[in-house]
């Protein structure tokens, strides 16, 4: 009964609509009203009125090509294929009777040179199956998409909450840190004063001790020179000491001796210490010793101590590794060595050891140390939270799609391997490539932005500023995203040198399909 009714309907359609809408070849039903038999035809652009017989007479009369929809006469005409059983479509009328079957109903080829099969039904069936499959995929994918949206939204909320929490925490920690810093600074003042005082006192003491020591050495020398122990050193007594032979004449002349004695014929210890000693102490040789006491220790000048080397290496690391700077730096290095050296020599010659701090000072230091430790701890807690906060802010600033559906891809990486390379996509981070057989990874681009075509911004991602190509641009990677039930890197290509193109499938790209609008059994017209 139903069938009968359907046939009746068709018959009705055929007798009414068709009769009224009889149309020239290549005209769509929607345009049929413009082509009415027996009436002059107005070119659709309104430019001309031509006889109905000139429609499809294989000569182009209208500038817009509208008089020849069913022939190839006009360069800009359109031919309408009805394609019953499948989708109707327009093709350029230049494809009419060119020997190639363009419409699935074969209606574009009618001059008998080729015979086109009508395969619209098969194609329609195929298309519907394909659409069904696509729809099923979208439906299933859409479910996952919703999960992603949920996950993403939740995660974002969580992050947002966390962000607030972290901000509070950071502010608290900052207050604590600041407070401890104040306390630290407060305690460091008396500490510094005490330490300074201790050092100043020690410097004074040390100077005295040095003076005493020098005088003792001078006395020793004086006694030595004073061969007859009469507490007077004379020219003659000086002449005994070969080290005073200035001109290397083989003996110490009276003049030479006198010169050392600053023209005194003789001196007592007081004069000796005040006037003479400073001048001769470098020359004077204690009998039995080859080198003078003040001579520097051998070898020390050429080999820098290993500790200073380490410092240099550290220093190196801090420098920007540009060649120009390197040279400069090498000079610095030498300077560094020298300074180090001097200090060492100084310390070597210094037999005096600073005494321990007194109990009072020790207590002050102890208190300051304690304050510093507390501050350091508070500071590092603060920094940690601050870092976490920055990190969270960064994540929240990322575009995870209008509904956060791409959030679950963050921190993940996906790979695709062809015959030569393994390509990797780490969404929101980078795209890379490495040879299958090893070698280093090449960066094809850092996360840039969603970069789909107009109105479909989230259909593609752009990774930019990858490793530079020799004589060329920085590498970049364009990632087309399609709906898939799993996250999967599906292909990679390099359509232009150093411009890569990935195809990536993800549920994040699945959307709800529009409701099915047709009845697969009754769609033939």
């Amino acid at each position, binding site marked *: 009964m139903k069938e009968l009714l359907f046939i009746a309907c068709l018959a009705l359609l055929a007798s009414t609509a068709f009769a009224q809408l009889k149309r020239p070849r290549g005209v769509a039903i929607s345009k049929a009203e413009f082509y009415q038999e027996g009436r002059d035809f107005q070119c659709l652009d309104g430019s001309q009125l031509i006889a109905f017989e000139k429609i499809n*007479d*294989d*000569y182009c*009369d209208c500038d817009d090509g509208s008089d020849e929809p069913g022939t*190839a*006469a006009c*360069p800009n005409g359109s031919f309408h294929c009805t394609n019953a059983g499948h989708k109707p479509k327009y093709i*350029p009328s*230049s*494809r009419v009777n*060119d*020997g*190639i079957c363009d419409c699935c109903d074969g209606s574009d080829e009618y001059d008998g*040179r080729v015979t086109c099969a009508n395969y619209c039904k098969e194609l329609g069936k195929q298309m519907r199956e394909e659409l069904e499959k696509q729809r099923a995929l979208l439906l299933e994918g859409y479910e996952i998409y919703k999960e992603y949206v949920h996950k993403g939204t939740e995660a974002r909320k969580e992050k947002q909450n966390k962000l607030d929490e972290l901000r509070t925490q950071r502010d608290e920690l900052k207050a604590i840190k600041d407070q401890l810093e104040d306390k630290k600074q407060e305690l460091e003042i008396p500490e510094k004063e005490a330490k300074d005082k201790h050092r100043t006192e020690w410097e004074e003491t040390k100077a005295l001790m040095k003076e005493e020591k020098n005088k003792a050495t001078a006395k020793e020398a004086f006694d030595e020179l004073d061969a007859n122990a009469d507490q007077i050193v004379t020219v003659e007594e000086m002449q005994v000491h070969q080290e005073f032979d200035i001109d290397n004449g083989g003996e110490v002349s009276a003049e030479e001796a006198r010169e050392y004695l600053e023209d005194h014929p003789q001196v007592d210890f007081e004069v000796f210490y005040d006037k003479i000693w400073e001048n001769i102490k470098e020359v004077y040789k204690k009998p039995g010793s080859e080198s003078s006491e003040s001579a520097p220790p051998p070898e020390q000048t050429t080999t820098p101590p290993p500790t200073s080397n380490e410092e240099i290496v550290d220093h190196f690391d801090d420098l920007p590794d540009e060649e120009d700077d390197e040279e400069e730096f090498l000079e610095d290095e030498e300077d560094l060595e020298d300074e180090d050296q001097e200090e060492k020599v100084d310390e070597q010659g210094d037999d005096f050891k600073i005494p321990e701090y007194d109990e009072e000072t020790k207590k002050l230091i102890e208190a300051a140390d304690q304050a510093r430790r507390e501050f350091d701890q508070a500071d590092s807690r603060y920094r940690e939270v601050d870092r976490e906060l920055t990190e969270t802010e960064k994540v929240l600033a990322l575009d995870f799609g209008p509904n956060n559906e791409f959030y679950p891809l963050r921190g993940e990486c996906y790979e695709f391997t062809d*015959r030569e390379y393994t390509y990797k996509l780490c969404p929101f981070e980078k795209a890379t490539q490495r040879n299958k057989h090893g070698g280093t990874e090449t960066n094809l681009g850092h996360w840039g932005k969603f970069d789909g075509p107009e109105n479909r911004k989230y259909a593609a991602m752009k990774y930019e500023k990858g490793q530079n190509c*020799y*004589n*060329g641009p920085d590498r970049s990677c364009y990632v087309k995203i399609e709906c898939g039930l799993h996250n999967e890197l599906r292909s990679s*290509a*390099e*359509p*232009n*040198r150093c*411009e890569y193109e990935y195809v990536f499938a993800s549920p994040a790209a699945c959307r709800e399909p529009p409701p099915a609008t047709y009845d697969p059994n009754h769609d033939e017209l």
Partner: protein
Amino acid sequence: MWLLLVLCGSLTVCSAVDRNNFKTCDQSGFCKRHRDMATGASPYVVLLDQLTLDHSKATVPLMNKVTKVQLKLEIWSLKNNMARMRVTEMEPIKQRYEPPVGDVLIGEPAQDSLEKLQLDGAKAVFGFGSNKLRIQAEPFLIEVSTDDVPVMSINHRGLFKFEHYRLKNEGKAEEEAEEGNEEGNGEEGKAEEENKEQPEEEEEEPGMWEETFKTHTDRKPHGPSSVGFDIAFPGFEFVYGIPEHADSVALKSTANTEPYRLFNLDVFEYELNNPMALYGSIPVMLAHNEERTVGMFFLNAAEMWVDIHSNKADKSTFSKLMEFVHGDQDIPQVDTHWIAESGVIDVFLMMGPTAKDVFQQYSSLTGSTPLPPLFSLAYHQCRWNYNDEKDVAQIDENFDAHDMPMDVIWLDIEHTDGKRYFTWDSVKFPHPAEMIANISAKGRKMVTIIDPHIKRDTNYHIHQEAQAQSLYVRDRDGNEYDGWCWPGSSSYLDFLDPKVREFWASKYQPDQYEGSTHDLFTWNDMNEPSVFNGPEITMHKDAKHYGGWEHRDIHNIYGMYQQRATVEGQLRRDPQQRPFVLTRAFFAGTQRYGAVWTGDNTAEWGHLKMSIPMLLSLNLVGITFSGADVGGFFKNPDAELMTRWYQAGAYQPFFRAHAHIETKRREPWLLPDENRDVIRDSLRARYRLLPYWYTLFHAAEAGGSPAMRPLWVEFPKDKSTFGTEDQYLVGPGLLVHPVTDAGATGVSVYLPGTDDVWYDMDTSQRFHGAQTVYVAVKLNKARSRFLIPVFRRGGCIIPQRDRIRRSSSLTYHDPFTLVVALDKHNSAKGDLYSDDYNSFKYQAGAYIHRQFTFEHNKLTSKNLNPAGSFSTPAWIEKIIVIGVKSSPKAVYASVEGTGQSSLEFKYDDTTQMLIIRKPGMGVNKDFDITLS
């Protein structure tokens, strides 16, 4: 293609040509020896008393007075108003290379009668046609005149020099080395004093027996062998030809530059306005003045240098007989000096007297361009590289999606399995035959690249067979020549050997070239040959070829033999189908084998501009089927340059877009819509005019006339056009002025011909000739379009097909439109040639050739091939007559076999254009159409 991608990788800077890679004349021993000669230094005397003469030929000894070495001078009179002068050694100790007859010359040139007019001990005068050839005995001089006007003079400046083969005097050389130069010279001086009659040895000069350039040493086992001569063109200021150089069409004086060099070389990023050698060599020169055009062809395949000097003719050097009638005026003269490293002096003098006569004369010697299959005149889409089958399919689909016609998709070297030609990359191109079938389903074709270097891989079948059959060029020690090219270590097939060409041809059989089909054609690149690690990026000159010839003897002809072998392969594959092979290297005769392109140009405005003179130079010397890479090969063109280049390319004979692998994609639909649409228009303009192009190529085959012509070919008396190279003619009927400057909004176009009228192709606006008009080429926002100035010449009828299909083969049955552009006398003529566009049946008469004449308000179509057996459903859908002063009252058609009928028409007052609606007769019918 792209020499040095590999080498560049190791260089820090890689821009523009590295001139140090290539020799200057000073660095080339033989060139320097000739160029350093003082004027009048040539010590030759013609022994006229020993002259022998037959019907068409005179033979006479030519003696070097110093060395007493005798040469043989032969003079022929040839049919078609030509003469030939050949100089060889009388008693050679070693043969000199001359290209076998049939390889460059299509046959032994037909001889004509040489009439003895005068002969005594001092001079001989011969007549041929309306020309005279006068030989002066001492100093040796040959003067040629037409109607007693001197046009050529050989050895005019006394630079003739012929280095005879000699034995290396080992003993003397050693002695000299021991005793020093001074004493050696002294001895020679003494000998001269003692006996003046004794022949002297020619002075030894450096580079005669060994020559080193950069790290390469040329052993020169046969010693010096060069030949050189000068030829003057009295009365001429303009000479043309001797491609290939990136330089002006009118050749420049080389007085202060290097000579023009002819030596096939692979030059990376070649420089403009430079006489450096490029990929091909054609030793043919044309001289033109208001009175006549003459030409000369120096048949020699060795490295060649040509010096050109502008001069004034010295009237006293011409005999009374040849005196000018010009009075006391200075007469211009071009002096040329030709220097070749080996071979003989074999010069063809083409006496014109018109340019078209010279084209015909030259094509009678070396052949003309056979009618190409129609698809090859359509648009070609190329890139290094279309990466895989999917890429190819997308290119194909995109042309359709954007409604742009396209005929051929090309695959560069990356399609092969590791640069092993005749193979496919099995991953990127797993189903080549299927891929080609998908493309050819739309009437399209494909082309793959096949280079002459063969990867030395023992698992590669071509290499195995080449080794087993001993088909490679040998190095000087007799080993297989081993050079570096795309595949790495490679050997080079010796295409001079008929056996090698046979082998090569057999490789195009479908069972040999797996994955190929009948719709696959060929591109021969790198055939200079390019050798990345060789001297000057080519083969060592002491390498050895078939017949024992050295590479130095045959260098410039090598590439032509490869293309020829490829053509033979395609013919063997499809005896009924016309071949198509593109080559980069070329020589005289290459026109018989296919198309040539100007190699690796750059995406710069200067290169677009230079493409015009480069192509004009090629067209003047036989290579009419030529083009430049549209868009420029190296670097990235901007949208404007790309657009302008398409506009120019659409009006040049070989129309192919190509791009380097490191450039960005630039297929037309990737450009902004505005540019894309203009490019679509350009492609359509090309396809619309394909019937005209095809007719022009028919004429090129028949008479050697090029499709692309300098203005002076059609306007020989208009001196202002003699140096024109920013505009040109396509056939007789279209004048094209490509826009070659960035941001141009208008160009000045010179319309020649005092008696001519021209019509703007777009607007049909009429202009008188002999004036310069300003043409806007970038219209304002309202119609933001790039225009290219193209003018129809009044008096020409041009056939076209206005229906644009996806590819040219889909238009075979489509109707024609005739565009009749009237001249001042309201008349016009033209022709249409048509056939099956693909087979050789036209050679048996299966074609139609119609002559259209418009006179006295009547258009007549006459059959030029009445015996023709070709039938076609194609008909005439429209006739446009431009320049009709007033509307006819009626238009009648009278068609063969039917009566008279009235035709509908439209007339537009403002454009003076008459459109006759749907005459409808078959194109192969005689008809006349009358305006009344």
